[in-house]
Protein backbone atom coordinates (compact mmCIF):
# COMPACT_ATOMS: atom_id res chain seq x y z
CA UNK A 1 0.00 0.00 0.00
CA UNK A 2 1.37 3.37 -0.90
CA UNK A 3 -0.03 6.79 -0.27
CA UNK A 4 -0.07 9.15 -3.25
CA UNK A 5 2.18 11.97 -2.05
CA UNK A 6 5.41 9.97 -1.92
CA UNK A 7 6.59 10.03 -5.52
CA UNK A 8 10.40 9.92 -5.33
CA UNK A 9 12.24 12.88 -6.78
CA UNK A 10 16.00 12.46 -6.60
CA UNK A 11 16.80 8.99 -5.29
CA UNK A 12 19.72 8.83 -2.86
CA UNK A 13 19.61 5.28 -1.57
CA UNK A 14 17.52 2.57 -3.06
CA UNK A 15 16.93 -1.07 -2.17
CA UNK A 16 15.46 -3.34 -4.80
CA UNK A 17 13.96 -6.69 -3.91
CA UNK A 18 16.29 -7.50 -1.01
CA UNK A 19 16.08 -11.08 0.19
CA UNK A 20 18.10 -12.20 3.17
CA UNK A 21 18.21 -15.50 5.01
CA UNK A 22 20.13 -16.73 8.01
CA UNK A 23 20.37 -20.40 7.12
CA UNK A 24 16.80 -21.62 6.76
CA UNK A 25 15.45 -18.47 8.37
CA UNK A 26 14.11 -16.17 5.66
CA UNK A 27 14.30 -12.72 7.28
CA UNK A 28 13.92 -10.24 4.42
CA UNK A 29 11.48 -11.31 1.74
CA UNK A 30 11.89 -8.76 -1.00
CA UNK A 31 12.31 -5.30 0.47
CA UNK A 32 11.92 -2.39 -1.94
CA UNK A 33 12.59 1.09 -0.64
CA UNK A 34 13.84 4.38 -2.00
CA UNK A 35 14.98 7.38 0.02
CA UNK A 36 15.17 10.65 -1.86
CA UNK A 37 17.50 13.52 -1.17
CA UNK A 38 16.92 15.34 2.13
CA UNK A 39 14.16 12.93 3.04
CA UNK A 40 13.79 11.66 6.58
CA UNK A 41 12.36 8.20 6.69
CA UNK A 42 11.45 6.33 9.84
CA UNK A 43 11.12 2.57 9.83
CA UNK A 44 8.74 0.94 12.28
CA UNK A 45 7.77 -2.64 12.86
CA UNK A 46 7.41 -5.35 15.46
CA UNK A 47 10.48 -6.95 17.05
CA UNK A 48 12.26 -9.34 14.77
CA UNK A 49 10.59 -8.14 11.56
CA UNK A 50 13.99 -7.42 10.03
CA UNK A 51 14.53 -3.68 10.49
CA UNK A 52 18.08 -3.95 11.74
CA UNK A 53 18.89 -6.61 9.21
CA UNK A 54 17.62 -4.36 6.45
CA UNK A 55 19.76 -1.39 7.54
CA UNK A 56 22.79 -3.65 7.83
CA UNK A 57 22.19 -4.98 4.32
CA UNK A 58 22.03 -1.43 3.01
CA UNK A 59 25.65 -0.79 3.93
CA UNK A 60 26.72 -4.39 3.52
CA UNK A 61 27.49 -5.18 7.12
CA UNK A 62 25.38 -8.20 6.18
CA UNK A 63 25.44 -9.94 2.84
CA UNK A 64 22.06 -10.50 1.26
CA UNK A 65 21.07 -13.19 -1.21
CA UNK A 66 18.92 -11.44 -3.79
CA UNK A 67 18.28 -7.93 -4.96
CA UNK A 68 20.46 -4.85 -5.24
CA UNK A 69 21.34 -1.57 -3.53
CA UNK A 70 21.70 1.68 -5.45
CA UNK A 71 23.33 4.91 -4.32
CA UNK A 72 22.55 8.06 -6.30
CA UNK A 73 21.39 6.02 -9.28
CA UNK A 74 24.38 3.69 -9.33
CA UNK A 75 24.28 0.09 -8.31
CA UNK A 76 26.65 -0.43 -5.37
CA UNK A 77 25.96 -4.01 -4.36
CA UNK A 78 24.10 -7.12 -5.38
CA UNK A 79 22.81 -10.24 -3.72
CA UNK A 80 24.97 -13.34 -3.48
CA UNK A 81 24.43 -16.90 -2.26
CA UNK A 82 24.84 -17.22 1.49
CA UNK A 83 28.21 -18.99 1.34
CA UNK A 84 29.65 -16.44 -1.09
CA UNK A 85 33.08 -15.13 -0.09
CA UNK A 86 33.36 -11.50 -1.23
CA UNK A 87 36.08 -10.88 -3.79
CA UNK A 88 38.64 -8.13 -3.38
CA UNK A 89 36.69 -5.97 -5.85
CA UNK A 90 33.44 -6.52 -3.97
CA UNK A 91 35.12 -5.66 -0.68
CA UNK A 92 36.48 -2.43 -2.15
CA UNK A 93 33.04 -1.61 -3.47
CA UNK A 94 31.46 -2.24 -0.10
CA UNK A 95 34.09 -0.03 1.52
CA UNK A 96 33.35 2.77 -0.97
CA UNK A 97 29.64 2.44 -0.25
CA UNK A 98 30.19 2.67 3.49
CA UNK A 99 32.24 5.80 3.03
CA UNK A 100 29.12 7.43 1.61
CA UNK A 101 26.61 5.97 4.06
CA UNK A 102 27.00 6.72 7.77
CA UNK A 103 25.65 4.41 10.44
CA UNK A 104 24.77 4.98 14.08
CA UNK A 105 24.35 1.96 16.30
CA UNK A 106 22.21 1.29 19.33
CA UNK A 107 25.28 0.62 21.43
CA UNK A 108 27.31 3.61 20.19
CA UNK A 109 30.41 1.52 19.48
CA UNK A 110 32.88 4.30 20.10
CA UNK A 111 36.51 3.23 19.97
CA UNK A 112 37.47 3.00 23.66
CA UNK A 113 41.22 3.20 23.04
CA UNK A 114 40.91 6.61 21.40
CA UNK A 115 39.88 9.97 22.79
CA UNK A 116 36.60 11.58 21.74
CA UNK A 117 38.57 13.74 19.31
CA UNK A 118 40.46 10.77 17.84
CA UNK A 119 37.18 8.92 17.38
CA UNK A 120 35.77 11.73 15.29
CA UNK A 121 39.04 12.20 13.42
CA UNK A 122 39.38 8.53 12.54
CA UNK A 123 37.31 8.71 9.35
CA UNK A 124 38.89 11.81 7.78
CA UNK A 125 42.35 10.73 8.93
CA UNK A 126 42.51 7.04 8.09
CA UNK A 127 39.88 6.74 5.37
CA UNK A 128 39.90 10.08 3.56
CA UNK A 129 43.61 10.54 4.33
CA UNK A 130 43.19 14.25 4.91
CA UNK A 131 45.98 16.38 6.32
CA UNK A 132 46.26 16.76 10.10
CA UNK A 133 44.98 20.34 9.94
CA UNK A 134 41.97 19.47 7.82
CA UNK A 135 41.21 16.44 9.96
CA UNK A 136 41.35 18.55 13.07
CA UNK A 137 39.08 21.21 11.58
CA UNK A 138 36.49 18.68 10.46
CA UNK A 139 36.45 16.97 13.86
CA UNK A 140 36.19 20.29 15.66
CA UNK A 141 33.28 21.34 13.47
CA UNK A 142 31.43 18.06 13.98
CA UNK A 143 31.96 18.02 17.74
CA UNK A 144 30.70 21.58 17.95
CA UNK A 145 27.70 20.58 15.88
CA UNK A 146 26.74 17.92 18.43
CA UNK A 147 27.62 20.28 21.28
CA UNK A 148 30.53 18.28 22.67
CA UNK A 149 33.63 20.19 21.63
CA UNK A 150 34.65 20.63 25.26
CA UNK A 151 34.76 16.83 25.61
CA UNK A 152 37.26 16.34 22.80
CA UNK A 153 40.21 15.23 24.99
CA UNK A 154 38.06 12.86 27.06
CA UNK A 155 37.99 9.11 27.13
CA UNK A 156 34.67 8.16 25.46
CA UNK A 157 33.66 5.72 28.18
CA UNK A 158 33.64 8.55 30.73
CA UNK A 159 30.76 10.25 28.87
CA UNK A 160 27.06 9.68 29.41
CA UNK A 161 25.25 7.43 26.94
CA UNK A 162 23.65 10.41 25.25
CA UNK A 163 26.99 12.12 24.88
CA UNK A 164 28.55 8.94 23.54
CA UNK A 165 25.82 8.63 20.95
CA UNK A 166 26.32 12.24 19.90
CA UNK A 167 30.04 11.58 19.49
CA UNK A 168 29.15 8.54 17.39
CA UNK A 169 26.95 10.76 15.22
CA UNK A 170 29.80 13.27 14.89
CA UNK A 171 32.16 10.44 13.93
CA UNK A 172 29.81 9.34 11.16
CA UNK A 173 29.19 12.92 10.00
CA UNK A 174 32.93 13.57 9.75
CA UNK A 175 32.90 11.40 6.62
CA UNK A 176 30.43 13.83 5.07
CA UNK A 177 28.04 11.02 4.14
CA UNK A 178 25.21 11.19 1.60
CA UNK A 179 22.89 9.20 3.83
CA UNK A 180 22.77 8.43 7.55
CA UNK A 181 21.32 5.22 8.96
CA UNK A 182 20.22 5.09 12.60
CA UNK A 183 19.41 1.74 14.16
CA UNK A 184 17.55 2.40 17.40
CA UNK A 185 20.03 5.10 18.27
CA UNK A 186 18.27 5.92 21.54
CA UNK A 187 17.02 2.54 22.75
CA UNK A 188 19.84 2.30 25.28
CA UNK A 189 19.16 5.77 26.67
CA UNK A 190 16.83 7.22 29.28
CA UNK A 191 14.28 9.87 28.22
CA UNK A 192 16.49 12.85 29.09
CA UNK A 193 19.47 11.56 27.14
CA UNK A 194 17.17 10.48 24.32
CA UNK A 195 16.04 14.07 24.00
CA UNK A 196 19.54 15.42 23.51
CA UNK A 197 20.22 12.88 20.78
CA UNK A 198 16.88 13.64 19.09
CA UNK A 199 17.76 17.31 19.14
CA UNK A 200 20.90 16.57 17.10
CA UNK A 201 18.91 14.41 14.68
CA UNK A 202 16.35 17.20 14.24
CA UNK A 203 19.10 19.67 13.42
CA UNK A 204 20.48 17.27 10.83
CA UNK A 205 17.02 16.94 9.30
CA UNK A 206 16.72 20.72 9.16
CA UNK A 207 20.06 20.88 7.34
CA UNK A 208 18.72 18.53 4.71
CA UNK A 209 20.55 15.32 5.65
CA UNK A 210 19.01 12.24 4.09
CA UNK A 211 18.23 9.81 6.90
CA UNK A 212 16.75 6.41 7.60
CA UNK A 213 15.84 5.90 11.22
CA UNK A 214 14.72 2.72 12.89
CA UNK A 215 13.08 3.66 16.16
CA UNK A 216 10.63 2.43 18.73
CA UNK A 217 9.80 5.97 19.81
CA UNK A 218 6.48 6.58 18.08
CA UNK A 219 6.19 10.28 18.90
CA UNK A 220 9.63 10.95 17.50
CA UNK A 221 9.02 8.72 14.47
CA UNK A 222 5.88 10.62 13.64
CA UNK A 223 7.30 14.01 14.38
CA UNK A 224 10.54 13.87 12.42
CA UNK A 225 9.50 11.72 9.45
CA UNK A 226 8.72 12.91 5.97
CA UNK A 227 7.65 9.36 5.35
CA UNK A 228 7.01 6.41 7.61
CA UNK A 229 7.74 2.85 6.57
CA UNK A 230 6.07 -0.04 8.32
CA UNK A 231 7.85 -3.36 8.06
CA UNK A 232 6.29 -6.64 8.94
CA UNK A 233 7.27 -10.23 8.22
CA UNK A 234 10.33 -9.24 6.22
CA UNK A 235 8.65 -6.87 3.78
CA UNK A 236 7.58 -3.24 3.65
CA UNK A 237 3.95 -3.75 4.54
CA UNK A 238 2.94 -0.11 4.19
CA UNK A 239 4.46 3.31 3.80
CA UNK A 240 3.28 6.87 3.56
CA UNK A 241 3.04 10.18 5.33
CA UNK A 242 3.09 10.12 9.14
CA UNK A 243 -0.63 10.92 9.31
CA UNK A 244 -1.40 8.17 6.78
CA UNK A 245 0.38 5.57 8.91
CA UNK A 246 -0.49 6.85 12.36
CA UNK A 247 -4.03 8.14 11.81
CA UNK A 248 -5.44 6.09 8.96
CA UNK A 249 -3.61 2.94 10.10
CA UNK A 250 -4.00 1.29 6.71
CA UNK A 251 -3.32 -2.33 7.66
CA UNK A 252 -4.30 -4.72 10.38
CA UNK A 253 -0.61 -5.12 11.26
CA UNK A 254 -0.18 -1.38 11.89
CA UNK A 255 -3.30 -1.25 14.02
CA UNK A 256 -2.06 -4.09 16.19
CA UNK A 257 1.44 -2.61 16.37
CA UNK A 258 0.29 0.89 17.35
CA UNK A 259 -2.27 -0.34 19.87
CA UNK A 260 0.32 -2.48 21.62
CA UNK A 261 2.81 0.40 21.87
Amino acid at each position, binding site marked *: MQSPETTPSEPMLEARGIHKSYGSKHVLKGVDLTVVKAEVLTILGPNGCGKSTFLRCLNL*LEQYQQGSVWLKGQQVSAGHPEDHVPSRVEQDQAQKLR*QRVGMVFQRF*NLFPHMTVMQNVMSGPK*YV*LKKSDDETHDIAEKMLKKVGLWEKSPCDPLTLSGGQQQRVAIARALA*MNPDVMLFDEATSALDPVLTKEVFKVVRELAAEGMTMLLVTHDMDFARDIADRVVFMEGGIVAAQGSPSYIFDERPTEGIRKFLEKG
Partner: protein
Amino acid sequence: MWTYLVEQIHIGDLIVAARWPLYLTALSMPMAVFFGLFLALMRLSSSKMLSWPSAAYIEIMRGTPLYVQLFLVYYTLPQIGIAFHTRALTLDPFPAAVICLAANYAAYEAEIHRAGLQAVDKGQREAALSIGMSEKQSFFLVTLPQAFRIILPPVINDAIAMLKDSCLASAIGVMELLKVAEGIGKNSEVGLANMYIAAGVLYMILSLGFYFLGKYIEIKLRARGGAELSLTQARH
Protein backbone atom coordinates in the same frame (compact mmCIF):
# COMPACT_ATOMS: atom_id res chain seq x y z
CA MET B 1 77.67 -12.65 54.67
CA TRP B 2 79.02 -10.55 51.85
CA THR B 3 82.27 -12.50 51.67
CA TYR B 4 80.26 -15.73 51.70
CA LEU B 5 78.20 -14.52 48.75
CA VAL B 6 81.22 -13.33 46.82
CA GLU B 7 83.72 -16.07 47.60
CA GLN B 8 81.59 -19.17 48.11
CA ILE B 9 78.50 -18.59 45.98
CA HIS B 10 80.43 -16.62 43.34
CA ILE B 11 77.49 -14.29 43.15
CA GLY B 12 79.27 -12.19 40.53
CA ASP B 13 79.42 -15.13 38.14
CA LEU B 14 75.80 -15.96 38.83
CA ILE B 15 74.64 -12.43 38.12
CA VAL B 16 76.59 -12.42 34.88
CA ALA B 17 75.03 -15.78 33.97
CA ALA B 18 71.58 -14.40 34.79
CA ARG B 19 71.74 -12.53 31.51
CA TRP B 20 71.06 -15.80 29.66
CA PRO B 21 67.48 -16.33 30.83
CA LEU B 22 66.95 -12.64 30.10
CA TYR B 23 68.43 -12.89 26.60
CA LEU B 24 66.53 -16.06 25.80
CA THR B 25 63.22 -14.57 26.95
CA ALA B 26 63.81 -11.17 25.42
CA LEU B 27 64.48 -12.81 22.05
CA SER B 28 62.02 -15.69 22.13
CA MET B 29 58.99 -14.03 23.68
CA PRO B 30 58.52 -11.30 21.04
CA MET B 31 58.97 -13.95 18.36
CA ALA B 32 56.40 -16.15 20.06
CA VAL B 33 53.92 -13.28 20.34
CA PHE B 34 54.41 -12.35 16.69
CA PHE B 35 54.20 -15.90 15.35
CA GLY B 36 51.31 -16.58 17.73
CA LEU B 37 49.31 -13.77 16.14
CA PHE B 38 49.65 -15.45 12.75
CA LEU B 39 48.63 -18.77 14.21
CA ALA B 40 45.62 -17.15 15.88
CA LEU B 41 44.52 -15.46 12.65
CA MET B 42 44.86 -18.75 10.79
CA ARG B 43 42.94 -20.51 13.53
CA LEU B 44 40.14 -17.93 13.39
CA SER B 45 39.98 -18.07 9.60
CA SER B 46 36.87 -19.57 8.05
CA SER B 47 39.12 -21.45 5.65
CA LYS B 48 39.88 -24.99 6.81
CA MET B 49 43.10 -24.90 4.83
CA LEU B 50 44.34 -22.27 7.28
CA SER B 51 42.60 -23.12 10.52
CA TRP B 52 43.38 -26.81 10.51
CA PRO B 53 47.21 -26.66 10.25
CA SER B 54 47.20 -23.97 12.91
CA ALA B 55 45.06 -26.02 15.27
CA ALA B 56 47.30 -29.06 14.68
CA TYR B 57 50.46 -27.06 15.35
CA ILE B 58 49.04 -25.60 18.54
CA GLU B 59 47.94 -28.98 19.88
CA ILE B 60 51.24 -30.67 19.06
CA MET B 61 53.30 -27.90 20.66
CA ARG B 62 51.16 -27.84 23.76
CA GLY B 63 50.86 -31.59 23.95
CA THR B 64 54.56 -32.48 23.98
CA PRO B 65 57.27 -31.56 26.51
CA LEU B 66 59.46 -28.57 25.76
CA TYR B 67 62.40 -30.75 26.77
CA VAL B 68 61.67 -33.18 23.97
CA GLN B 69 61.18 -30.35 21.49
CA LEU B 70 64.55 -28.88 22.44
CA PHE B 71 66.32 -32.13 21.67
CA LEU B 72 64.47 -32.57 18.41
CA VAL B 73 65.31 -29.06 17.26
CA TYR B 74 68.90 -29.37 18.36
CA TYR B 75 69.66 -32.75 16.86
CA THR B 76 67.04 -33.37 14.21
CA LEU B 77 66.62 -30.10 12.35
CA PRO B 78 70.27 -30.09 11.22
CA GLN B 79 69.89 -33.62 9.92
CA ILE B 80 67.05 -32.59 7.66
CA GLY B 81 69.21 -29.80 6.34
CA ILE B 82 68.31 -26.80 8.42
CA ALA B 83 71.71 -25.90 9.83
CA PHE B 84 72.61 -22.38 10.75
CA HIS B 85 76.26 -22.97 11.29
CA THR B 86 79.21 -24.92 10.04
CA ARG B 87 78.86 -27.86 12.39
CA ALA B 88 76.39 -29.89 10.42
CA LEU B 89 75.37 -32.33 13.10
CA THR B 90 73.75 -29.94 15.53
CA LEU B 91 72.59 -26.36 15.61
CA ASP B 92 74.37 -23.91 17.83
CA PRO B 93 72.76 -24.39 21.22
CA PHE B 94 71.75 -20.79 21.72
CA PRO B 95 69.83 -20.21 18.45
CA ALA B 96 68.33 -23.67 18.80
CA ALA B 97 67.04 -22.74 22.24
CA VAL B 98 65.66 -19.42 21.00
CA ILE B 99 63.85 -21.05 18.10
CA CYS B 100 62.48 -23.77 20.27
CA LEU B 101 61.21 -21.52 23.03
CA ALA B 102 59.64 -19.21 20.46
CA ALA B 103 58.01 -22.06 18.54
CA ASN B 104 56.68 -23.65 21.70
CA TYR B 105 55.35 -20.50 23.30
CA ALA B 106 53.84 -19.33 20.00
CA ALA B 107 51.22 -22.04 20.51
CA TYR B 108 50.25 -20.60 23.89
CA GLU B 109 50.40 -17.02 22.68
CA ALA B 110 48.18 -18.01 19.74
CA GLU B 111 45.48 -19.13 22.14
CA ILE B 112 45.84 -15.92 24.13
CA HIS B 113 45.60 -13.85 20.95
CA ARG B 114 42.59 -15.82 19.83
CA ALA B 115 40.75 -15.28 23.09
CA GLY B 116 41.81 -11.62 23.13
CA LEU B 117 40.64 -10.97 19.58
CA GLN B 118 37.34 -12.70 20.24
CA ALA B 119 36.85 -10.66 23.39
CA VAL B 120 36.81 -7.40 21.46
CA ASP B 121 33.19 -6.45 20.83
CA LYS B 122 32.07 -7.27 17.28
CA GLY B 123 30.47 -3.84 17.17
CA GLN B 124 33.94 -2.30 17.11
CA ARG B 125 34.78 -3.86 13.77
CA GLU B 126 31.38 -2.89 12.42
CA ALA B 127 31.78 0.70 13.58
CA ALA B 128 35.19 0.84 11.91
CA LEU B 129 33.80 -0.59 8.68
CA SER B 130 30.80 1.73 8.83
CA ILE B 131 32.99 4.82 8.64
CA GLY B 132 34.60 3.33 5.56
CA MET B 133 37.69 1.61 6.90
CA SER B 134 38.94 -1.48 5.11
CA GLU B 135 38.96 -4.82 6.94
CA LYS B 136 42.71 -4.41 7.35
CA GLN B 137 42.41 -0.95 8.86
CA SER B 138 39.63 -2.03 11.15
CA PHE B 139 41.83 -4.89 12.35
CA PHE B 140 45.03 -2.94 12.89
CA LEU B 141 43.56 0.37 14.05
CA VAL B 142 40.58 -0.80 16.08
CA THR B 143 40.50 -4.50 16.97
CA LEU B 144 44.17 -5.27 17.58
CA PRO B 145 44.93 -2.29 19.87
CA GLN B 146 41.99 -3.29 22.03
CA ALA B 147 42.97 -6.95 22.01
CA PHE B 148 46.48 -5.87 23.03
CA ARG B 149 45.25 -4.53 26.34
CA ILE B 150 43.38 -7.73 26.98
CA ILE B 151 46.28 -10.03 26.18
CA LEU B 152 48.97 -8.07 27.96
CA PRO B 153 48.57 -9.61 31.44
CA PRO B 154 48.53 -13.24 30.24
CA VAL B 155 51.45 -12.54 27.89
CA ILE B 156 53.52 -11.09 30.73
CA ASN B 157 52.53 -14.12 32.72
CA ASP B 158 53.89 -16.34 29.96
CA ALA B 159 57.08 -14.29 29.73
CA ILE B 160 57.70 -15.09 33.38
CA ALA B 161 57.01 -18.76 32.72
CA MET B 162 59.43 -18.67 29.79
CA LEU B 163 62.11 -17.09 31.94
CA LYS B 164 61.98 -20.17 34.13
CA ASP B 165 61.53 -22.64 31.26
CA SER B 166 64.64 -21.19 29.65
CA CYS B 167 66.73 -23.18 32.12
CA LEU B 168 65.87 -26.25 30.04
CA ALA B 169 68.20 -24.79 27.43
CA SER B 170 71.06 -26.03 29.59
CA ALA B 171 70.07 -29.53 28.49
CA ILE B 172 71.39 -28.79 25.00
CA GLY B 173 74.47 -27.03 26.34
CA VAL B 174 73.52 -23.38 26.70
CA MET B 175 75.66 -22.13 29.59
CA GLU B 176 72.78 -20.39 31.27
CA LEU B 177 72.20 -19.48 34.92
CA LEU B 178 71.28 -22.90 36.24
CA LYS B 179 74.16 -24.60 34.47
CA VAL B 180 76.65 -22.06 35.84
CA ALA B 181 75.23 -22.48 39.34
CA GLU B 182 75.60 -26.25 39.06
CA GLY B 183 79.16 -25.85 37.87
CA ILE B 184 80.08 -23.77 40.89
CA GLY B 185 78.30 -26.13 43.26
CA LYS B 186 80.12 -29.19 41.96
CA ASN B 187 83.57 -27.61 42.26
CA SER B 188 83.41 -26.14 45.75
CA GLU B 189 82.35 -27.06 49.25
CA VAL B 190 79.38 -24.68 49.19
CA GLY B 191 77.10 -27.48 48.01
CA LEU B 192 74.62 -27.87 45.16
CA ALA B 193 71.62 -27.10 47.34
CA ASN B 194 72.87 -23.65 48.26
CA MET B 195 73.69 -22.92 44.64
CA TYR B 196 70.18 -23.95 43.57
CA ILE B 197 68.75 -21.62 46.19
CA ALA B 198 70.96 -18.78 44.96
CA ALA B 199 69.93 -19.42 41.35
CA GLY B 200 66.29 -19.61 42.42
CA VAL B 201 66.53 -16.24 44.11
CA LEU B 202 67.97 -14.72 40.93
CA TYR B 203 65.14 -16.22 38.81
CA MET B 204 62.73 -14.79 41.33
CA ILE B 205 64.24 -11.32 41.02
CA LEU B 206 64.06 -11.50 37.21
CA SER B 207 60.42 -12.65 37.38
CA LEU B 208 59.54 -9.79 39.67
CA GLY B 209 61.18 -7.42 37.21
CA PHE B 210 58.90 -8.72 34.44
CA TYR B 211 55.92 -8.57 36.74
CA PHE B 212 56.48 -4.92 37.57
CA LEU B 213 57.22 -4.07 33.96
CA GLY B 214 53.85 -5.61 33.04
CA LYS B 215 52.05 -3.76 35.82
CA TYR B 216 53.64 -0.52 34.70
CA ILE B 217 52.48 -0.95 31.09
CA GLU B 218 49.02 -1.98 32.28
CA ILE B 219 48.66 1.14 34.41
CA LYS B 220 49.89 3.30 31.55
CA LEU B 221 47.28 1.73 29.28
CA ARG B 222 44.50 1.88 31.82
CA ALA B 223 45.05 5.61 32.12
CA ARG B 224 43.91 5.63 28.49
CA GLY B 225 40.79 3.57 29.21
CA GLY B 226 39.55 0.60 27.28
CA ALA B 227 38.30 -2.90 27.68
CA GLU B 228 39.73 -5.21 30.26
CA LEU B 229 39.37 -8.86 30.73
CA SER B 230 41.26 -11.56 32.50
CA LEU B 231 41.73 -14.72 30.55
CA THR B 232 41.60 -18.14 32.08
CA GLN B 233 44.98 -19.62 31.48
CA ALA B 234 45.63 -22.82 29.63
CA ARG B 235 48.38 -23.65 32.11
CA HIS B 236 50.82 -22.10 34.62
